[in-house]
């Protein structure tokens, strides 16, 4: 038996913008075991629910994670609306879908860029981020902020989209679609890229099902699970089919995310076409009481909120189960028996969002 060595991966590592620490037990160049150490980003923001009232909590929930902030806020406001039996106007629900899908697009483009960077293809990283800036511009022009758009309030949204803005968004998305399509051949068919991604970090359908993989990580293993199929918000009015790939390796996961960009563009178009007239937000009276569980689909997978209110303006408990937390056990089954050089690619292939996971 050869010697076993422990190599630390993180907390500060060039391929990851965020601190995650993995202890990699290696034998020669082959990784035998990965031991995660978390807690570098833990802030304890769930506890803030007892210090901020339920309107202010939206602000905190948006900052669970900057990349999927819009969808965190949607999930939180939906839970409060369900507790307080508030009817959200149809127009607000469609606007939420539009901003959510814009957020998903920018998250996936960001990830595709970082993924390209992980296997050393820097030009592709720059290209994806260049396209992504168009979506950031849309966010800034419509909501006033690039990353944390802050459009949700309890009972609806606070910003409206005029006809001109909608037309401009659709024009921009046309360009985004064209530019993304130009990169399809490189990221999905290039020989060099494929030699890094195909067969790296394989997870079978059964493993994905057993470990509860969610989002593109699960869908890349053929698991047809997407919380948008539940039809929350305006999704019940839209035509939607999840993107699934059966292979279960890093290539399959990048394939799924790449095609989800198209799916999101399609959803924004449908929502813009079907956008009804009406109010932006319903009036809110009283305080939330009772318990509720809400599930929504984030760029990284299914996100679950549990909210408990006690009839005062402060909530008793907000519990957030984020998609990356569910995807860490799958990651730990992918890493063993891979080469040390493949670890960054595999870790990134689940799209880890550590600030979500640790909150």
């Amino acid at each position, binding site marked *: 038996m050869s010697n076993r060595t422990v190599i630390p991966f993180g907390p500060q590592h060039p391929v990851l*913008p965020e601190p995650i620490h993995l202890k990699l037990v290696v034998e020669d160049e082959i990784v035998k075991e990965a031991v995660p150490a978390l807690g570098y*980003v833990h*802030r304890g923001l769930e506890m803030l629910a007892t*210090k901020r009232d339920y309107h202010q909590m939206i602000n905190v929930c948006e900052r669970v994670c900057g*990349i999927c902030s819009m969808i965190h806020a949607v999930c939180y406001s939906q839970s409060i609306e369900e507790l307080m039996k508030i009817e959200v106007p149809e127009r607000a629900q469609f606007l939420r879908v539009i901003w959510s899908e814009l957020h998903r697009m920018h998250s996936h483009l960001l990830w595709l860029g970082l993924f390209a960077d992980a296997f050393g293809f820097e030009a592709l990283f720059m290209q994806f981020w260049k396209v992504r800036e168009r979506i950031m511009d849309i966010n800034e022009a419509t909501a006033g902020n690039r990353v944390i758009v802050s459009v949700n309030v309890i009972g609806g949204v606070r910003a409206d989209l005029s006809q001109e803005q909608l037309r401009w968004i659709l024009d921009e998305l046309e360009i985004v679609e064209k530019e993304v399509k130009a990169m399809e051949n490189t990221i999905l068919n290039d020989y060099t890229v494929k030699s890094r991604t195909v067969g790296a970090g394989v997870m079978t359908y059964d493993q994905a099902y057993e470990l509860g993989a969610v989002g593109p990580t699960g869908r890349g293993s053929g698991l047809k699970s997407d919380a948008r199929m539940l039809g929350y918000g305006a999704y019940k009015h839209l035509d939607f089919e999840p993107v699934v790939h059966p292979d279960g390796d890093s290539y399959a996961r990048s394939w799924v995310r790449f095609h989800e960009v198209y799916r999101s563009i399609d959803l924004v178009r449908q929502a813009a076409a079907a956008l009804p007239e009406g109010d932006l937000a319903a009036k809110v009276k009283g305080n939330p009481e009772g318990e509720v569980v809400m599930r929504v689909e984030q760029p990284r997978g299914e996100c679950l909120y549990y909210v408990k209110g006690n009839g005062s303006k402060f909530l008793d408990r907000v519990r957030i189960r984020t998609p990356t937390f569910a995807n860490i056990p799958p990651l730990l089954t992918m890493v063993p028996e891979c080469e040390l050089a493949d670890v960054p690619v595999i870790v990134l292939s689940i799209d880890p969002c550590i600030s979500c996971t640790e909150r």
Partner: protein
Amino acid sequence: MFKKLIKKSRAKSPWIMHFDCGSCNGCDIETLACLTPLYDVERFGIINVGNPKHADVLLVTGTVNHRNKAVLKNIYDQMPDPKAVIAIGACGLSGGVFRDCYNVVGGVDKVIPVDVYVPGCPAKPEAIIDGVVQALAKFEQKQAG
């Protein structure tokens, strides 16, 4: 003469290192966006490096918590002198929206000395670039003094 050359190139082409110290990712992706074609700080000779021993400027985003403050201190100590530190975002300045959380120590300046503060939640790429430029002025002072 060699010393003079190093002195000049340090200020003209600073290498930055980014450390996420418990932020929500908002500032991190804006920091990364600075490197990409629209903002492209590489035209000023700024390169993002992964090794603290190569870095001149440290960009820190996010709140400091009890677990990562040792890591932050460690990274700062590994950087060669002269060095500059930039705290980015409301969280890096004071703890921001998370200042009341139980695991939050506060701003970056509780652990290491900070030269430039960049406000915003999240800070815009333009603001971050401006922060780096201001840090370079301080950097030149430090080199002289």
